């Protein structure tokens, strides 16, 4: 597969390490959230047949974590973003 890196352009997916559903960005706050919330966050998956937002790490590249929007049936990739930008846009901060 080829992932169009937002900074580096097309790169072979072999350079990346796959993590999974991009919802892993939305980690609850451990000081306020309990086991149920963390369970939902860490274990439950929508696992769609179709468009899937997922995390890839450019380990053999620039070490950017990316959020890749990819169709799990056709493997077509329609969007690639820097995970850092996505995280910020979702209001993650200290």
């Amino acid at each position, binding site marked *: *597969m080829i992932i169009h890196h937002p900074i580096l352009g097309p790169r072979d*997916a*072999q350079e990346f390490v*796959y*993590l*999974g*559903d991009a919802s892993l960005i939305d980690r609850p706050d451990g000081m306020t959230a309990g*086991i*149920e919330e963390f*369970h939902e966050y*860490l*274990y*439950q*998956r*929508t*696992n*769609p*047949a179709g468009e*899937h937002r*997922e995390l890839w790490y450019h380990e053999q590249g620039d070490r950017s974590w990316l959020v890749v929007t*990819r169709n*799990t*049936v*056709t*493997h077509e990739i329609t969007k690639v973003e820097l995970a850092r930008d996505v995280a910020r846009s979702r209001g993650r901060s200290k």
Partner: protein
Amino acid sequence: MRYSGFRVIAEALTGHKGWKPVWRDPAPQAEYDYIIVGGGGHGLATAYYLAKEFGQSRIAVLEKGYLGGGNVGRNTTIIRSNYLLDGNEPFYEFSLKLWEGLEQDFNYNAMVSQRGIINLIHTDAQRDAFTRRGNAMRLHGADAELLSREQVRKMYPWLNFDNARFPIKGALMQRRGGTVRHDAVAWGYARGADMRGVDLIQNCEVTGMRIENGRIKGVETTRGYIGAKKVGVAVAGSSSKVMAHAGMRLPIESHVLQAFVSEGLKPLIDGVMTFGAGHFYVSQSDKGGLVFGGDIDGYNSYAQRGNLPVIEDVAEGGMALMPAIGRVRLLRTWGGIMDMSMDGSPFIDKTHIEGLYFNGGWCYGGFKATPASGWCFAHLMAKDEPHKTATAYRLDRFLKGRMIDEKGQGAQPNLH
């Protein structure tokens, strides 16, 4: 009709005119006591045991495509019970025992062949881990032996012993492990279920579930609505899709696993072998093809096809272990969809919806589990309590912190 050598001879002499269809093609009835969604190995086995062992009737199996078209017809045919953890080992040992009597039980030759499986050891740490595992197996009544490097060399002198990057230091062996002709398992269970009155309905995809006040009423299908008192879902590769009809999310990701077969060859490998220093395992079919595989591709997929990197990775493992196969040709690759769970272990459980049962999350270990999975799922559906070897396969085990994590990889499905 009963199959036997005499029957084969009789038919041969009379032009094979007497062979009957292995199963009927019934039209779906309006309602059943039991609907099993999924006409793969586990679904067919469930229906078979429901009828045969638990005396149930009015059973239908609904299959989206053709019978046995799921992972039961798309795997590397290995059976074993060399598991480590208490939650798993009794179940897989139960399964192996069922394999050992299966053909006589359902009167179909599935070529269950216990030619043994060895897991090669390349480091002292692996030996320690396999010693722990082997003892766990023995404690659960399974067979296990630790082989020395020389014992392995005696079995397969042509493995890479002398020029290996990661030298072979021994192996964990289970002699009762082996292989089975995978399609025949589906056909044997299908035929056995059909003979016992189970309606096997092909080309019938479930498109919805009718649930009223927390109770299942039936399923919408491409062949119309079908009512049911109890519905059991056993749809490896589609678990999340089908259970979404019941509004459920699962601790499962679907991934593609490729498998491979070489051109037919005269006997080279008798049993099953797994390489401990790379992603590679192999056996040789009765027809002569090397059947082998490795890691999953590693990204969520429903595409039933894989990519080159894994093909290369598997070939590298094969060549590192067996330098003589350089000129052996890879004939065919295929991809199956694995429902990878969050700890690498499966689910056989009730759901919060009364009458709806779930069987899934088999990762790439589902084939060897087929008989026990069918039996235990039938047990759960018939008696509403789990079979004693399958009590740990609960959907709420992650909430409770009772993972069954053989590999110790944690909540990352593609690492199991």
